C-alpha cells in the first residue's frame, strides 16, 4: 500500500474512533454547560442505549427499537435527575460529581445483573460486517458515516434548540446565571431535568449508532466516559461543535501515534496530550477562559 493511501487510512481510522468519542462528548458538554455537573454516568447512558435497543430489536424492527431505546434512556436520565439531584441543590459540585460516579457504578452493575456479561451488537444500519466505503484508496465502514452523521445532526439540533426555542434559551439562561433566570420565572429544576433527559437521549442514540462498531457490553461505559470527557475538555465547554472537534482530535492523535510507536502506548499519548492541553490551556481549544475561572468548586 502506498504511503499516501496508508496515511489516509490512518486518518480514516482516527475519524472512526474520533467520531465515537465526539458523540459521547456532546452529551457531557450539554450537561456541563446547562448545570455545571460533570456527569460521569454519561458513558452508562451510551451503554444503556445500545443494550435496550438490542433487547427491543429482538421483536421490533430496528428503527423502532432505536427510537424507543432513545426515549427510554431519556426517561431514565430524567428519573435520575429527579431522584438524586433535585433534592440536593444545596450540595457542592464536588458532591454532585461524586454522586454521578456512584450512579455510573450502580448502573453498570445493574446492567450486568439484568443482561449478563455477554457482548452484543446491533446490526449495521447499512451494509454488514465486511462492507466498506472506499475513498481514494482507503476504506471505512459505512457505519462510521452514520456515526458522524448522527454527531453532526445532534450538533445542529442542539444549536437550533438552544438558540431558537424557548426551552433552549431558558436552558442557556439557567446555565449562565441561575439566580437571574429564576427571577425571570424560569423553573430551574425543570430545566435541569430537561438537560439531563436530553443528554441521556443523545447518549442513548450514540449507543445505538456505535453498537455495530464497538459492540455493546455492560462494561463499555467507563472507558467511553473517560475518553468522551477528555474530548469535551479538549474542545472546551459551552459549544457542542467544540466537543465534536475535540473528539475527532483525540481519535486522530491516537491513530497517528499507532503509526509511529507500539500500539500499546497510544492511550498514553492521548492522555499525555490531554494533560498538556490542560496545563497550558485548560479551557480547551474553543472554550472561554473567563467563565471557567469563575466556577468555584
Amino acid at each position, binding site marked *: 500500500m502506498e504511503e499516501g493511501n496508508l496515511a489516509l487510512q490512518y486518518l480514516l481510522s482516527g475519524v472512526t474512533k474520533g467520531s465515537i468519542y465526539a458523540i459521547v462528548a456532546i452529551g457531557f458538554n450539554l450537561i*456541563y454547560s446547562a448545570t455545571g455537573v*460533570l456527569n460521569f454516568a454519561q458513558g452508562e447512558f451510551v451503554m444503556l442505549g445500545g443494550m435496550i435497543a438490542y433487547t427491543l430489536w429482538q421483536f421490533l424492527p430496528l428503527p423502532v427499537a432505536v427510537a424507543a431505546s432513545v426515549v427510554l434512556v431519556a426517561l431514565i436520565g430524567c428519573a435520575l435527575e429527579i431522584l*438524586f439531584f433535585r*433534592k*440536593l441543590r444545596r*450540595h*457542592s*459540585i*464536588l*458532591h454532585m*460529581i*461524586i*454522586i454521578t*460516579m*456512584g*450512579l*455510573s*457504578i*450502580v448502573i*453498570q*452493575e*445493574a446492567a450486568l445483573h439484568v443482561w449478563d456479561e455477554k457482548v452484543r451488537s446491533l446490526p449495521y444500519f447499512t451494509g454488514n460486517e465486511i462492507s466498506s466505503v472506499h475513498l481514494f484508496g482507503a476504506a471505512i465502514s459505512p457505519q462510521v458515516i452514520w456515526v458522524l452523521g448522527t454527531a453532526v445532526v445532534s450538533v445542529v439540533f442542539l444549536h437550533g434548540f438552544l438558540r431558537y426555542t424557548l426551552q433552549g434559551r431558558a436552558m442557556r439562561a439557567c446555565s449562565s446565571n441561575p439566580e437571574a433566570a429564576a427571577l425571570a420565572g424560569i423553573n430551574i429544576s425543570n430545566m435541569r431535568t430537561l438537560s439531563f433527559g436530553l443528554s441521556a437521549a443523545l447518549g442513548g442514540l450514540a449507543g445505538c449508532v456505535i453498537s455495530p462498531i464497538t459492540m455493546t457490553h455492560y462494561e463499555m461505559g*467507563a472507558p467511553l466516559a*473517560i475518553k468522551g*470527557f*477528555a474530548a469535551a*475538555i479538549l474542545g472546551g465547554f459551552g459549544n457542542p461543535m467544540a466537543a465534536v472537534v475535540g473528539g475527532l482530535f483525540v481519535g486522530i492523535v491516537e491513530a497517528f501515534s499507532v503509526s509511529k510507536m*507500539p500500539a*500499546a*502506548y497510544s*492511550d*498514553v499519548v492521548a*492522555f*499525555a496530550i*490531554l*494533560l498538556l492541553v*490542560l*496545563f497550558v490551556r*485548560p479551557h480547551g481549544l474553543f472554550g472561554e477562559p473567563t467563565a*471557567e*475561572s469563575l*466556577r*468555584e*468548586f
Partner: protein
Amino acid sequence: MAKMRQVIFLTAVIASLVAVHLFLRAIGKEYCLTQLTMSVYYAIVVVGLCLVMGYAGQVSLGHGAFFALGGYTTAILTTHDFSRFQHAPWARALRQAHVFVVKQDLFSGQVMNVTPTIAFFAAMSVTFLVACLIGYPALRLKGHYLAMATLGFGLIVNKMLVGSALAGGADGITNVPEWRIAGLLTISGKTALRVQNYYVACGVALVLLLLLRNLVKSRVGRALLAIHDGETAAGAMGINTAGYKLKTFVLSALLAALAGVLFTHYTGGIAPSEAGALKSVRYVTLAAAGGMANLWGGAIVSTIINFFSLRGWFGTYDNAVFGAILIIIISLTPEGPLKPLGIWLRRAWDRCAGTLGNEHGAA
C-alpha cells in the same frame, strides 16, 4: 484538659484494636486479621486523600497511581535479578553496603536483588519526584479540570505498567520477598507473623494519623481550611496557596506510596489494577463516606468496608455496594456519616444515662 482527652482517646483506640484481636482469637477466627491488615493499608491511602480532598479541597481521581508507584518500585527492585552485574566492582561495593543481597531462589538458583529497605527509600523518592512533577502544574487547575488531570495521570501510569515487560505487564509482579525492617519488625505474609503484622499495620496507621492530626490542628491545617473555603480570599491574606496545595498533595502521595510498599511486601505481589480508575474511584468513595475532612472517619469507614469487601461479603455485588455507598452517604450526609452517627449515639446515650449525659455536655 484537652491533652488528657487526647490520651484517653488514644488509649481507647489502642484498647479497641487489641480487643478486636483478642475477640477474634477467642472465637477462633484469628485469620480475619489478614483482611484487616490489608484494609488498614488501604485506609492509609484514604486518610491521605482526606487530607487533600477535605482540607485542601482538591479532588484526586488518580491516587491509586501513587499506591502503585510505591508498590511497583519496591516489587521490581526486590524481585529483579541483577546478577549479571554480580562481578562488577560497584556491584560488589553495593553488596557490602547491604544495598544488594544474594538469595537462593526457589527455582532458578542464585539471584541478586535489592534489599527491601533500600527499595523502600527508592519508592519514596520516585513517588516524591512524580508527585511534584504532576502536582505543580495540575494543582493550578480548578475543580473538574484537576479531576480530569489526576484521572488522566492515573490512567497513564496504569497503561504504562500494563505495557511494560519489566513491570510484569498485565499479570503484575508476584513473589515479592518479605521486608525485615529491624529485629523483630518484619512485614511478611507468613501465617506465623500474622498477629505481629496486624499490630505493625495498626501502629503505622496510628502514628500517621496522630502526625496528620497535629498537622491539621496547626497553622498549616488552618491555612488549608482557609484555602478550602475560599482560595482567592486566602491568597489575599498572604497564604501561599499554591505552596500549601502542592505540599499537601505530595504528602498524600507519599502516604499512598508507603501504603503501597507495605501492602506489596505483606501480600507478596502487586498488579496494574491497583493504579486503575476503579481503585482510585473507590478511594474517593471511602474518603467521601468517612467525611472528607474527618481523618479518623475516613480511616475507620475505609477499614470496615474494605474488610468486608476482601472477605467477599458483598459477593458479586461488590462494585454495586461501593456505588451505592457513594450515592447514599453523599446524598444523606455530605459531611460524612460519623458526625450524625455520633450525634445520634450521644442522644441515645443521654436518654439512657440521664444525668450522666449532662456531665459530658462539653464533649
